[in-house]
């Protein structure tokens, strides 16, 4: 069995003593788009933050491996170097640090000295263009005074610049208008069309299926109350759009009786 993939095994996680994730098993395959859907409070963001190494989440048991390498217990920056990227639902502002400086420092940390300054600059401008972002962005402070749409575009810009192996998109669609949503979807798609992005695996965490119109999922997982209760193809997202989460909840409740 191949060890490739972002593999979550029996993951149990508590926040402030409350168990939120109650045994998650999930594999994000290279080159594929997995959607993780679930109602509010089901534990979606907890999974995202736990994968990225947020210190506020206590892992009770389980493992997360990235192409065979255990990443739980590693510092957040090590996980990023291993190839993990988290697009934040609420990206933090860093007043005083320009976007340009931040991008350069991040790229240099994840992939030291692999680009000349000129090539790095060219890459940034190419990706800005693809995201329909103005170069004035580069001089602004990271997420400082950004609108919701600007923040999400900056997340996508960072993803494109860092070119990770696996990207977890936590509610990247929330608060976006149609244009921004389309830009996000296109950005991910165009990244997948490049040689280095072709193998990228995505975990798209979302409450509503609308982002999946722009970034179609190959596999859909449904998270309810800290457990993956259902996994299926794209049609599962359509079903949720029609029926909401209640029907799936009922099915799960019936099955567990």
């Amino acid at each position, binding site marked *: 069995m191949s060890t490739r993939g972002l593999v979550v095994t029996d993951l149990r996680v508590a926040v402030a003593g409350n168990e939120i994730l109650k045994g998650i098993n999930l594999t994000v395959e290279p080159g594929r788009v997995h959607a993780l859907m679930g109602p509010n409070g089901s534990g979606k963001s907890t999974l995202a933050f736990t994968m990225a190494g947020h*210190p506020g989440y206590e892992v009770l048991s389980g493992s997360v491996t990235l192409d065979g390498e255990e990443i739980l217990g590693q510092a957040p920056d090590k996980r990023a170097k291993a190839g993990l990227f988290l697009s934040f639902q609420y990206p933090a502002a*860093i007043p*005083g640090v320009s976007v340009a400086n931040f991008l350069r420092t991040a790229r240099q940390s994840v992939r030291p000295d692999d680009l000349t300054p000129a090539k790095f600059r060219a890459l940034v401008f190419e990706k800005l263009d693809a995201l329909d972002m103005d170069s004035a962005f580069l001089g602004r402070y990271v997420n400082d005074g950004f609108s919701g749409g600007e923040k999400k575009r900056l997340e996508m810009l960072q993803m494109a610049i860092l070119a990770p192996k696996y990207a977890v998109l936590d509610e990247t669609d929330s608060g976006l208008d149609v244009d921004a949503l389309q830009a996000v979807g296109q950005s991910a798609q165009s990244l997948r069309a490049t040689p280095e992005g072709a193998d990228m695996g995505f975990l798209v965490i979302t409450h509503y299926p609308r982002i999946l119109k722009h970034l179609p999922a190959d596999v859909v997982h449904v998270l309810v109350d800290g457990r993956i209760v259902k996994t299926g193809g794209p049609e599962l997202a359509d079903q949720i759009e029609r029926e909401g989460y209640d029907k799936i909840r009922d099915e799960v409740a019936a099955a567990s009786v």
Partner: protein
Amino acid sequence: MSSDTLDALAFAPTKAALEDAISYLGDAGTDSGSAVSADARRAAFARFETLPAPGDRPNRGWRHDYAKLKFDDLRWSSERMTIATLPSRPRPVASNTDELDLSIDQPALATENAGGLFHLGSTFLDHPKSGATDARVTVMPLSDALRAHPELVQSAAGTVAKRGDKFTALATAFQNCGAFVHVPAGVQLDAPIQLVFAHDGDDAAVFPHIVVVLGDGARATVIERHEGEADAFICGIVDVVTGANARLDYVAVQRAGEGARSMMTRAARSGRDAVVAFHIAELGGVLVRSVVDAELDAEGARAETSALFFNTGFQHVDLVTETRHAVGNTTSDVVVRTAASDRGQGRFHGNIIIEPKAHGSDASLRDDALLLSKGSHIDSVPALEIAANDVKAFHGATVGSLDADALFYASSRGIPRGEAVRMIALAFFEPAISRFPGDALRDEVRTALDRKIDTATDLDA
């Protein structure tokens, strides 16, 4: 003059030492080069003896108490000479000009200057070598200026003394060096004027008095620098006066040795519709008191102050700003960023006073403090005294640690925690740094702060 007098005079704040100083320096206006008369020195010394030490109630966890300042083993002089006549001395580095230059950060002086003065401790040496002096401006030792331009000097000297405290009295009593800058009406300078104090000898007592006069419509940047590794005792006064519609950016970059003590009071009076902007970076020293007084007594005058300190190790810095709106339609804007790591301590006292006649004044005071370790401490004490109606006065203050969300965010992008701490901590100073004039100066301050982060041993916050 023989070279052995340079190191011979012991300094102590005593009457006997004062009389020694007077007989050594002579009276003002004579060839001796003193800028203060004997009587003025005696009067100032009397004030020094009777005035209370600044600072608040002791024993609140502060390591330093101004009332218990020790002056042991200090020595001083006021000998004037040029580089050509500088005697060889075994200990200090300044035995020749090449070595002297090595003790100073070159990038800081490599910029084009409109003029400047170079002091080794209290000893006036020369004009900085780089950059020719702009013929339109006057930059000279204060004692020379007192003879050459007595009215101009008198028009400005005493701005500080009006509200002097114990240390300004001490500075006047023992004044042993100084600079005079005059930018005549209408002259607008692109390059800065640099006043450099290289502190080369430990335990040197340096009492500078700097007087800056700008005529109507003049525009200038003056940079006062304190450089060098030595643990000097610096106690001085800066008096600034501008004419109408002038703009002065007055910068002070203090990077004295890690055992140095510095007590500087800088005060300005602006003319009608003039702007005086102070930019203060207190980076060196173990005990530093830095006072900025802005007096707005002409309609339309504006005072801007940006100030910062970053106390590492056992540093203690007190920063005091007082902005007085004496007449109407005056504006002020104070931005202060302070940080401490290790066992660093600091206080910021920011006062805004709006006097009864100052209707239509607009004052803003913003100070933020960043604590980078559990052993560090910063007090922020802003105060607004408003006696006029129809004024705008804003004041905001925070004391906090590094934003954990920002740290995690940066880490999640692959930036190691130490780098993220550095990046976010340095960025914290930007609102103050970005107001400093000129890219070179801003980068210099950033670099200095970056080096301070390297020396910080405790960044556990």
